[in-house]
């Protein structure tokens, strides 16, 4: 059966750590950095479980800063 794999790139300089992408994700892929911060002091988003991403782009749509780029590819 064809499966889809997704990948998310976060513009970490632009991210303000609002968490809206994290809660929009159906597959629990994203989280905010627990310790690391960007130059402005925000705990930016990152792929905590990269294998889980299905490339649905929910995170991209709800991001107020436009700091998320989403890719999706059919595999198998």
């Amino acid at each position, binding site marked *: 059966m064809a499966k889809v794999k997704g990948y998310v790139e976060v513009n970490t300089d632009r991210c303000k750590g609002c968490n*809206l992408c994290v*809660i929009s994700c159906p597959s629990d892929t994203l989280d905010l950095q627990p310790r690391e911060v960007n130059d402005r002091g925000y705990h930016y988003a990152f792929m905590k479980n990269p294998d889980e991403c299905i*490339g649905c782009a929910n995170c991209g*749509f709800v*991001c107020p800063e436009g700091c*998320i*780029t*989403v890719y999706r590819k059919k595999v198998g």
Partner: protein
Amino acid sequence: MNANDIISPENLVYAKPGLMNDNYMHYCPGCSHGVVHKVIAEVIKEMGLQEKTIGIAPVGCAVFAYNYLDIDWQEAAHGRAPALATAVKRLLPDRMVFTYQGDGDLAAIGTAETIHAANRGENIAIIFINNGIYGMTGGQMAPTTLSNMVTSTSPDGRNVQMMGNPLKILDMLALLDGVCLATRTSVHTAAAVKRTRRMIRLAFENAMAGKGTSIVEVVSTCNAGWKMTPAAANDWMVENMFPVYPIGDLKNI
């Protein structure tokens, strides 16, 4: 499969819209304004209107909207965006002219301009960000503030006997013959963002087709003014704002 097998242009499904530049936005983390800015940028690009669009920026948190979208803009005095939009559209009728206004701008100081522009059926689109509060100046009560809602100027909650009722200005605007589209949307989920995109596109099409005034009210959050996290503000909006400002079309002709 590793990331490099997926990251390539043919697999791209979402990116920051090209008309939104790289200037760092001044909005609080999680503010709805940024999402609506992105949607406007996407629709203008999709319609090929980047050289034909003139946005009218408000006074309020979105006062610097012109710094973020690479289109032509004019900055209006507080509440006067529909009057300025009227002038611009009448002088340059081939342009797509839209206003971007908060609820303090549109439904308090700018009530007269808004209602009369809509009543004249000016061929403009009005994007109305209703977060129920004056965000920029520190979270004061607005006409749109919900009953019993706590703000910096109604610390015990809005007492409607003393302070009036939440103003459903979209319902009033929908009654006017000059209005062809009056609809409420939101941007708290991907599905909601997609509906907002469809409605803003329709509003821009109406403006270009000379059908009259279109108003898209985006029921929004001001998490800083509401003193909540962005996620909690979304939930609060669904629970408290949506019953008073229900999502959907009031008029679409």
